[in-house]
């Protein structure tokens, strides 16, 4: 202890401002060295691919002319393409229907585990969250089997073809709900746990029942967390890809090659080698998701710790 004091005292006595400057320089150097790997990765796997996708989207490649600058032609084509429009409309409808259902289930589950503190509610919390730990590919495979006419348990009871074009979107929505409701439940539950208990203690004394407290007091108090979860879910559904791709072989007639914008972009690139057009679709979709979330983050920034 004494040693330390002497040493630091000696350091200040000898140098003063110059060493301070050198220390700042050393700190700056260390700072840059420490963020360097991250910056390299950020450039290589985020900024560069983004710029490259944008560049690709401005070019076209034909047999006669080779690769040539086409400015916004790919984008105008995408806006006019009925297959793109179909996919976009589908993911929007999907997002608007599936999201409220799933967030509703997640909210109900979160309010229930916040209210009940039994051993069963702890078990339920785990049960609801476990599907999130399953890879999307495998979760979708499982539901693919459950939906199947011969192997699944539902068909003999309900006589519904879950993969026919009328219901397949709802069937896909169920896979997403099953997989993500528990995740959102935990997020909302964390928000509920952060609420001051006194508020609803006094409501209880005033004679409010648990259902009233849950709906009238707790739910409004975590509204920002609900909005956040809703927005992230909608942004996720715009990028809908894995689930339709996995279930496609079960019914290629109802899950088409252009089922969602991402599935379409994927097929354009890897089945038809239309990299430029595919890049335009991806870039457009990415831009919508990016701008949407950025506006939202800015709007809610005041309330957060940042």
């Amino acid at each position, binding site marked *: 202890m004494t040693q330390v004091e002497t040493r630091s005292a000696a350091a200040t006595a000898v140098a003063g401002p110059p060493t301070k400057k050198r220390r700042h320089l050393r700190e700056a150097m260390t700072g840059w060295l420490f963020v360097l790997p*991250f910056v390299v990765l*950020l450039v290589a796997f985020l900024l560069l691919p*983004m710029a490259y996708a944008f560049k690709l989207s401005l070019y076209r490649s034909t047999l006669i002319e080779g690769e040539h600058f086409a400015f916004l032609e790919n984008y105008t084509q995408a806006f006019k393409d009925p297959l793109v429009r179909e996919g976009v409309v589908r993911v929007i409808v999907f997002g608007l229907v599936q999201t409220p259902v799933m967030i509703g289930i997640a909210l109900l589950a979160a309010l229930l585990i916040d209210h009940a503190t039994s051993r069963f509610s702890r078990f339920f919390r785990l049960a*609801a969250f476990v599907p999130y730990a399953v*890879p999307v590919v495998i979760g979708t*495979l499982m539901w693919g089997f459950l939906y199947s006419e011969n192997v699944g*348990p539902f068909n003999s009871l309900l006589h519904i073809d879950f993969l026919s074009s009328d219901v397949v979107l709802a069937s896909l929505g169920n896979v997403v709900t099953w997989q993500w409701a528990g995740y959102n439940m935990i997020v909302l539950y964390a928000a509920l746990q952060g609420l001051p208990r006194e508020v609803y203690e006094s409501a209880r004394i005033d004679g409010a029942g648990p259902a009233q407290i849950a709906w009238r007091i707790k739910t409004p108090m975590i509204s920002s967390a609900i909005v956040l979860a809703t927005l992230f879910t909608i*942004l996720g559904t715009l990028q809908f890809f894995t689930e339709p791709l996995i279930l496609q072989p079960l019914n290629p007639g109802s899950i088409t090659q252009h089922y969602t914008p991402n599935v379409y972009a994927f097929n354009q690139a890897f089945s038809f080698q239309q990299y430029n057009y595919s890049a335009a679709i991806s870039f457009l979709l990415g831009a919508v998701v990016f701008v949407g*979330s950025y506006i939202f983050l800015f709007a809610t920034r005041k309330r957060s710790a940042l």
Partner: protein
Amino acid sequence: MNPRSERAGFVPHLVMGLMAVYFLLPFWWLLVAATKDNDGLFLSAPLWFSEFHLVGNLKTVFSQENGIYLVWLRNSALYALVSGAGATAVSALAGYAFAKLRFPGRTKLFALLLGLIMVPATALVLPTYLLMSQAGLVDSIWAVILPSLLNPFGVYLLRVYTHESLPDEMLEAARIDGAGELRVFTSVALPAMRPALVTVLLFSMVASWNNFFLPLVMLSDDHLFPLTVGLRTWYMSATLGNGGEALFNVIVTGALVAIVPLIAAFLLLQRYWRGGLTIGAVK
């Protein structure tokens, strides 16, 4: 407690019970189905056991196509470990620097990170593939691992955690003791960051284990496939019936084997899962 509040306790439990059935039913089905042979899968009641073939199924899963399932399992584990450890190391260095070191451009760089955190990964897969193929890196393990090392959210999370839980005085004391910056980081900062580091490690490992789009695009050699991509090829050939060897009972058992380690890890490390999600919620 009056009778009314007791009844209010029953209804919530009933609702939770029904929801638990919904969430767990697919797992039950998978567990039961993995014990049946292909005929049993099609002919017996879906939700209950018939003849017990689990051992035979497991043997087939691991011996099918010269044991390629084991190769996929090993690949998944390798990608998850290397990507997870690498992403955590990179995020720890950057998160610590953003939280505790003053360097020119720090604020701007962090603002850039916040801005880019929301760029959807799916939009980047195609251009990344094309760039990697120009660099001659596609169809190699690096094509899957290198892009997975970038984890902006991990950097953000570690920056927030370090900022709040590591007092400047501790770093200052170590510096006065004559420790170099690297030493300060490894022996003072890292131990203090440990809970958040485990969370980031867990999340990046799971993200890598679950990854599908990136390896699907990057890899064509089936000996490099992770489980997700491999199982899909079996599933495709079984459903389309185009000459694939895999039968449904093999796929079902393969799916079960693939999720067991995840569920085990999830049950053992619950605390850290929740920790990560809670920090995410505060954001």
